[in-house]
């Protein structure tokens, strides 16, 4: 009980601190690196929640692939310092902050009233969870899984089409 609380609160502090830094630092590369730390903290939280395989996938997909791409693209751009990293306009800015705060309040309220909805149960041990996850993925959710495969193919083709350059080093004269 005590250890669970300590684990949760240290992870929550880690996540909130680096999440806050992500959205406030002006340099986009620093923001990306803080986001990487947030992702690693989330992997730890997933592990803490018993989703061992999901934690590993989070580490591989988000921290290891998606965020590396972000950092590489930001480095290619070589944006020195952002002069104006936040939105301009006092009125629209305050409107946006208020809407975000309202959303946060709504989400917190919903979370607060969700306490009684589900009955706590326990999942089986980690290795079995992974096996069952694979089984579910290939039986009950097979159609969605295949649809995701098609989606990824379409996205890959689209990305190649968008980022194909006609100038620069790949120019064909």
């Amino acid at each position, binding site marked *: 009980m005590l250890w669970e609380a300590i684990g949760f609160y240290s992870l929550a502090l880690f996540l909130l601190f680096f999440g806050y830094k992500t959205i406030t630092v002006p340099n986009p590369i620093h923001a990306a*690196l803080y986001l*990487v730390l947030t992702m690693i903290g989330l992997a730890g939280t997933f592990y803490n929640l018993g989703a061992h395989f999901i934690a590993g996938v989070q*580490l591989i997909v988000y*921290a290891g692939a998606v965020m590396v791409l972000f950092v590489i693209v930001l*480095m290619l751009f070589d944006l020195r310092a952002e002069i104006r990293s936040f939105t301009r306009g006092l009125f629209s800015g305050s409107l946006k902050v208020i809407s975000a705060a309202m959303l946060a309040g709504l989400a917190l309220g919903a979370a607060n009233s969700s306490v009684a909805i589900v009955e706590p149960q326990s999942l089986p041990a980690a*290795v079995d969870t992974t096996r069952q996850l694979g089984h579910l993925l290939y039986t009950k959710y097979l159609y969605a899984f295949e649809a995701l495969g098609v989606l990824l193919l379409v996205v890959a083709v689209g990305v190649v089409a968008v980022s194909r350059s006609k100038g620069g080093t790949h120019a064909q004269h």
Partner: protein
Amino acid sequence: MGTDIFEITVNFVKMVVIFLMMVQIVPLLVWVERRGSAFIQNRFGPNRVGPLGLTQLLADAVKFLTKEEFIPERGYPFLFYAAPVVAMIPATLALNALPLSVPIQVEAFEMFGQTWGPYTFLFQGYEFGIGIVFVLGVSSLAAYALLLAGYGSNNKYSLFGALRASAQTISYELAMGLSIVGVIMLFNTFNFTEMINAQSGPLSFSFLGKAVEIPALPNWGIFYQPLGALILFAAMFAEANRLPFDLPEAEGELVAGYHTEYSGFKFNMFFIGEYGHMFVASALMVIFYFGGYTLYPWLTPESVGAWFAGFSPTKASVLTALVLHVVFMAKVVLFLWIFIWVRWTLPRFRYDQLMDLGWRTMLPWALANTIITAVVILIMRTSWGS
């Protein structure tokens, strides 16, 4: 972690010892690399300091520690300092998750006027239950060390080296992950220990539903997954940024790549990270394809345990674990030598050739290997004629 103070202490010490093992193997490997390259190129190599040049390592360590610290003036000091530390983290975490020998069973004993209950100590830092997934996830973080070093140095060559290196790392990660899928399907588990246990007997498989056993050969993964082993080994070279894939630090074009601005001990830490990567790569090859800490006809956990039947159970368990650990390390050292051998034998690729090899050759072959493995496993394990 453990239930009482003794178990927690031992588990903690174990992690530190495994980390130190990784660090301590680096000077030895550097010596082997320099003497080995000299042997391959018909030279002498370092042979002046101490017998066979062995104390050259100590002299190098003193040199590294006393060199001037240099920080690029307009870089980002925090990122610059963080990069060498980050370079060492993935290899350390991954090595701690690998089983280096059989678990040690300790009987209950008396100490400080108290009985300390029976323990089982795994011969590894920690066990997460997702074995391979954890190792893959941690080693995919290796790209950040390069990116941090390249960006923190504020140097064009460093940045180019870092971008090349990270692009190479994430390209070859695909082929690496896919070649491991074949192993996972074959042994039907994520757990390293279960994998090694499956490889400790004679070669046995089911052929169209009938069990076949070949007693002359061990049940190693290499006999089922030769293509996967080749792809994994080649991808590991790219992951560790070693020749023939060491484009990131191509001296002729990029001065020294991402560690151009590093000197002294910080440079040394990048070195430790690289050799740690080699160590983990060799250990993974041994675990997946070459039987881990077992050597079937002679050295299996049962037969080695029988040698020490006369000792007390605790002592026998410790001795068995140590003997099997030596077997494991012997295999790993063999692979480390192959790493060094390849470095001084093959020429380096051009950058476009490197990317072509990764995306157009290794990725399709790894995909084909996955699909063929799945189909063959399905056909072989189904009993056809009933």
